[in-house]
């Protein structure tokens, strides 16, 4: 393969395609959606609210009454009572509560006696800074009820979420901007890139290219058109929306993984449709099921649907981009994501190779 020839074709495509109104619209629409989401959903502030479940009977009741007094006006605290610790834990797991404080009967008596009994506090994965402040406050509250300091030995336990709520973690603005970026990539890989190739096939300019360059060089250049446009469109979306990306390396991996895993299928579509106008008309229909997984990532959905979403490049792309935009992983599983990208990428290009062989191109 000649890099010079690939570069020459790529340069031509980048200039030529952007002058095509269809391609331009395909790129602009999802970017505009990202900006729109960014405007509609304001920047999320740290939640000034916290929901605390106090578990237990008599002693728990006293703690539940005292806690709001100690918090005063600092935050909007909701205190619930729950007799069963398992139920309380589930509420925390499901993000219905931020914190559960387990107060066994007799705890206040032991504290008064100066035995500093252990106090179990369960903290949810999505707990806000306000809720974490409450965790710090609880031992003091018990100290005030018992006139002892320290009254208890706090045992803070982190609870894993059964279904992480990404929207809570990211905020709606960032969530929808990231989803719009997946849309940008999907549109470019499965609409813009195939339209570029389909137009070449339709107008038979590809015949002239194939006379001067190898088929592999032409297809590599076309795939790179998708990669370059996706990268630029993603950068533009991020610049316009000013969404912070905490871990750029991981985020870029998600962007590149998504485009590489989809662009092979995009090129297949070009050979199947062989008409830019047909692709522009019907490609959107094919695009929808490919994009849906990005929008159900992290949202409470049936398990089977979550598995399906995780098996798609847009699902894994969204997960990786979400993780890349936060200081710590919400989803993790980068290895699985890379494997999904690789499998889809390889299958896409194998199908493309098969289609080309069958057509004798």
């Amino acid at each position, binding site marked *: 393969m000649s890099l010079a020839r690939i570069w020459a074709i790529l340069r031509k495509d980048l*200039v030529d395609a952007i002058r095509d109104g269809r391609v331009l619209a395909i790129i602009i629409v999802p970017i505009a959606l990202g900006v729109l989401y960014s405007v509609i959903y304001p920047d999320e502030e740290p939640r000034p609210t916290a929901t605390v479940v106090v578990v237990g009977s008599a002693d728990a009741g006293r703690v539940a009454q005292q806690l709001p007094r100690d918090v005063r006006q600092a935050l909007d605290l909701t205190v619930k009572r729950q007799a069963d610790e398992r139920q309380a834990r589930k509420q925390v797991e499901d993000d219905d509560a931020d914190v559960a404080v387990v107060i066994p009967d007799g705890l206040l008596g032991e504290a008064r006696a100066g035995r500093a009994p252990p106090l179990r506090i369960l903290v949810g994965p999505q707990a806000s800074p306000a809720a974490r402040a409450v965790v710090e406050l609880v031992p003091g509250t018990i100290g005030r009820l018992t006139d002892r300091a320290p009254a208890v030995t706090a045992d803070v336990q982190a609870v894993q979420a059964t279904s992480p709520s990404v929207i809570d973690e990211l905020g709606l603005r960032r969530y929808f901007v990231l989803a719009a970026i997946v849309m940008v990539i999907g549109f470019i890989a499965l609409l813009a890139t195939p339209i570029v190739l389909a137009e070449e096939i339709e107008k038979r*300019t590809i015949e002239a290219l194939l006379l001067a360059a190898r088929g592999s060089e032409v297809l590599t250049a076309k795939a790179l058109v998708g990669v370059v446009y996706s990268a630029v469109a993603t950068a533009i979306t991020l610049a316009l929306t000013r969404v912070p990306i905490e871990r750029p390396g991981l985020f870029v991996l998600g962007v590149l993984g998504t485009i590489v895993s989809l662009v092979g299928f995009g090129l297949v579509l070009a050979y199947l449709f062989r008409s830019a106008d047909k692709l522009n008309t019907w490609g959107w229909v094919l695009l929808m099921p490919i994009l849906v997984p990005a929008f159900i990532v992290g949202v409470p959905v049936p398990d089977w649907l979550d598995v399906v979403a995780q098996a798609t490049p847009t699902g894994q792309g969204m997960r990786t981009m979400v993780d890349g935009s936060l200081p710590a992983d919400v989803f993790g599983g980068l290895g699985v994501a890379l494997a999904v990208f690789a499998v889809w990428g390889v299958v896409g290009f194998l199908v493309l190779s098969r289609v080309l062989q069958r057509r004798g191109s």
Partner: protein
Amino acid sequence: MSVPRPAESPPTAGAPPGAGVVVDDLSKRYGDVEAVRGISFSVQAGEVFGLLGHNGAGKTTTIRMLTGRTPPSGGSATVGGHDIVRERDRARALLNLVFEDQNLYERLSGRDNLALFGELYGAPKARTDELLERVGIASAAKRKVKTYSTGMKQRLLLARGLINDPQVLFLDEPTRGLDPVSARNLREIVRELSAAGTTIVLTTHDMVEADELCHRVAFLSEGRIVALDTPRELKLRLGDGDAPGATRPRRARVLLDDRTEHVVALDDPQDDERLSGWLREGRVLTVHSDEPSLADVFVALAGRSLDADDTTTETEATR
């Protein structure tokens, strides 16, 4: 007006050794359809060689094989001395093709179109402007191709076909859709190329063009070559009443001063007498020998005219 005729022997001065095209028992099958059935011919360096035939006769498939875009099902061929299958890249560097379709990048300028292919072939940058000048569209080089006329596009296609200074140039219906002046200019360039030693393989439906440009022509019908010779020999063969396969006597059309036209048989004594009488009386305005055209030859050999349409064109069948 005199029309320049191709020399009976193609010029070879300046042509590199081994240039030209050699085709040996070449065939191509698409599933059950045998598009080309074992054709053989050779084209000398500097020769203009015409491939003529109906839609579906096998012309486009033959050119696709010779330009390395479709592998043959059987037989072999060399272009510029290089096998089109085993040495495809070397062969392709020596050839170029002016497509039947005006497959240009319409949103790019003429210069950008040409510069792209210059880069792909590794041609010197100056070649782009040189060719734009040569084909007469230098003044429109910066304009987008979609603003070009059909003739300008065809000239740009020719320039693209010459960008790598090919030893062998394939021309697929190069004057289709052109006005007479543009067509004549293009033919003039073809003659110049031939004179400079470029081997040219031309497909056309235009029998007059083939007659005018080609040193030799091959008639393709149903994937086979049914005749191959110089246009003159083919016409003489059909016109010679004594020749095997001849279908018509030698005749002349005579226009008299009363605007009546008469056809006389040149080998009929009675018609000889009539013609002599008109000449003596000074009544003859024009006399045209009624020799067969290449189209007549083709009809005689293929059994139908080139204008007869097929339900499926070859181009469609091979796409």
